[in-house]
């Protein structure tokens, strides 16, 4: 009998959704001032050379020192907690429930310490990107009901104890953002991570903010820099309306497509490297530089694929796939203008969640 083999269970998201509904009724508080997260804050992050893991561990310990016992228990997970490791999504609270400490529930001092940790861990441009994504989430019109997003609705957690030498991970994410940084001494990876933006272009204090603007511009520059033959190989005939390996697709890899970077001239190769750096370089240079060297070493085996118009300003999907890097950029039709709603994913087929780096 088929049903003797059926499994009846409550889906984790259903349970999480309920928890969220209860939590939102209890802990919703006022939205804190945006000045706490700004590009200028990034400029004042701890300066000077030094292993990223050590700086991150110091900042994490400083953050943990601001917490009470209950908060410490909630922010800390075992390093081998695979369920928590994979507990990330593009979706907002109400549909998807994260664990860890929510920025909106922190005191100003705790929140400043949490953001100082990000600043110590990310590059300046990476920090600005994260800030832009969070600010975009703040200006995005809020629906009534239980779907919650905005700059307060980002969660911070640790897997393992912060350490300059031993493996541990920092998870930071919410709607349209999931950073999964694993550090192991001098080694570190941000894969897999999800960046997204809606709106992808907005005005704030008289400035135009485009959190994923450089990714978009570099990609259009590259596709338009290719010769006719290369472009023909790059452009896929089909429409790609979403990420193929977005959140929830750990452990899978698709067959590579598109034009091989081995056919690129030096300028085109540099454009491709600059484009890849927009994801790899979110993290501080101690981790980003060796990763970029690895990407460069495999550049001739890297493919670049495109779907959509090639006119700057239009909505187009692209994919970069090499031996140690997988990136997708997918405009979303949801919300009307697809150029205003972008999802991206960064993966490393050789080192997801620092799997390789964690080996002794």
């Amino acid at each position, binding site marked *: 009998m*088929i*049903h003797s*083999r*059926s*499994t*009846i*269970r*409550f*889906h984790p*998201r*259903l349970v999480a*959704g*309920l928890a969220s*509904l209860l939590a939102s009724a209890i802990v919703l508080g006022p939205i804190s001032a945006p000045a706490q997260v700004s590009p200028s804050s990034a400029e004042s992050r701890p300066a000077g050379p030094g292993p990223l893991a050590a700086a991150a561990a110091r900042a994490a310990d400083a953050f943990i020192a601001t917490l009470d016992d209950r908060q410490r228990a909630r922010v800390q997970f075992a390093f081998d907690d695979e369920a928590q490791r994979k507990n990330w999504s*593009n*979706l*907002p609270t*109400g*549909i*998807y429930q994260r664990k860890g400490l929510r920025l909106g529930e922190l005191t100003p001092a705790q929140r400043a310490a949490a953001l100082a940790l990000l600043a110590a861990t990310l590059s300046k441009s990476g920090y600005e990107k994260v800030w832009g994504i969070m600010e975009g989430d703040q200006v*995005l*019109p809020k*629906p*009534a*009901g*239980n*779907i919650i*997003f905005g700059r307060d609705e980002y969660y911070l957690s640790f897997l393992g104890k912060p350490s300059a030498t031993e493996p541990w991970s920092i998870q930071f994410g919410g*709607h*349209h953002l999931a950073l999964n940084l694993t550090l192991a001494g001098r080694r570190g990876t941000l894969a897999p991570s999800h960046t997204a933006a*809606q709106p992808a272009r907005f005005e704030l204090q008289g400035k135009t903010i485009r959190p994923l603007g450089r990714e978009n511009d570099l990609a259009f520059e590259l596709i338009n820099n290719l010769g006719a033959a290369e472009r023909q190989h790059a452009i*896929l*005939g*089909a*429409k*790609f*309306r*979403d990420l*193929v390996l977005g959140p*929830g697709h750990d452990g*899978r*890899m*698709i*067959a*590579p*497509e598109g034009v091989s970077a081995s056919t690129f001239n030096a300028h085109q190769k540099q454009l491709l490297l600059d484009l890849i750096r927009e994801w790899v370089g979110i993290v501080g240079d101690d981790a980003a530089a060796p990763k970029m060297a690895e990407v460069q070493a495999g550049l001739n085996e890297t493919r670049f694929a495109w779907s959509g118009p090639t006119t700057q300003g239009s909505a187009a999907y692209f994919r970069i796939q090499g031996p140690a890097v997988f990136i997708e950029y997918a405009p979303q039709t*949801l*919300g009307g203008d697809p150029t205003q*709603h972008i999802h991206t994913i960064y993966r490393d087929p050789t080192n997801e969640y620092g799997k390789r780096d964690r080996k002794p």
Partner: protein
Amino acid sequence: MRSARHIYIFGPLALIFALLPSASAHRLDECLQAARLDLTPDRFTLELDLTPGIQTADAFLSRIDLDRNGQVSGVEADAYGDLVRAAIQLRLDGRRLGLTVDDVTMPPPEEIRSGAGNVRIRLTTKVPALRAGPHRVAVRNRHQPVASVYLANALLPDTPQIEIIRQQRDRLQRNLEVQFLVRR
């Protein structure tokens, strides 16, 4: 052979999720059908994820909850898996191969109504011994419970015995043809 069914119970909680407004974070008026084709020397597996948007969820569920009792039973999940299987054709070098429903994972209807529910159906077929050299496998997806958008991709094979040479799709990605090489 069907290996397992994952089905979910729902009930009064539907009300909570029914109150969710349309959010910009997820699909609204279309169903995403994402197909991934995994080729091994003796078996092909097609995994299909169906994620209906909020505005299409009720119509989508009406194709599954046949007795309208607010629950998806194992029988109904099986029936939906069979419906999908019947709408998908797989051909190897021009010859049609029969597909078997290997697994159906059905999230709670509340989750489907939220736009985040992902119905996953795994179809498999045994493959006759493949001679060394080039081959073609073609997948046609004619399943359209509601207005749909499609993704169709071949996974990177786990074995060096199979190398994907080229993937071709129609513009909507309802048809995927994969040219591959078998090494012995």
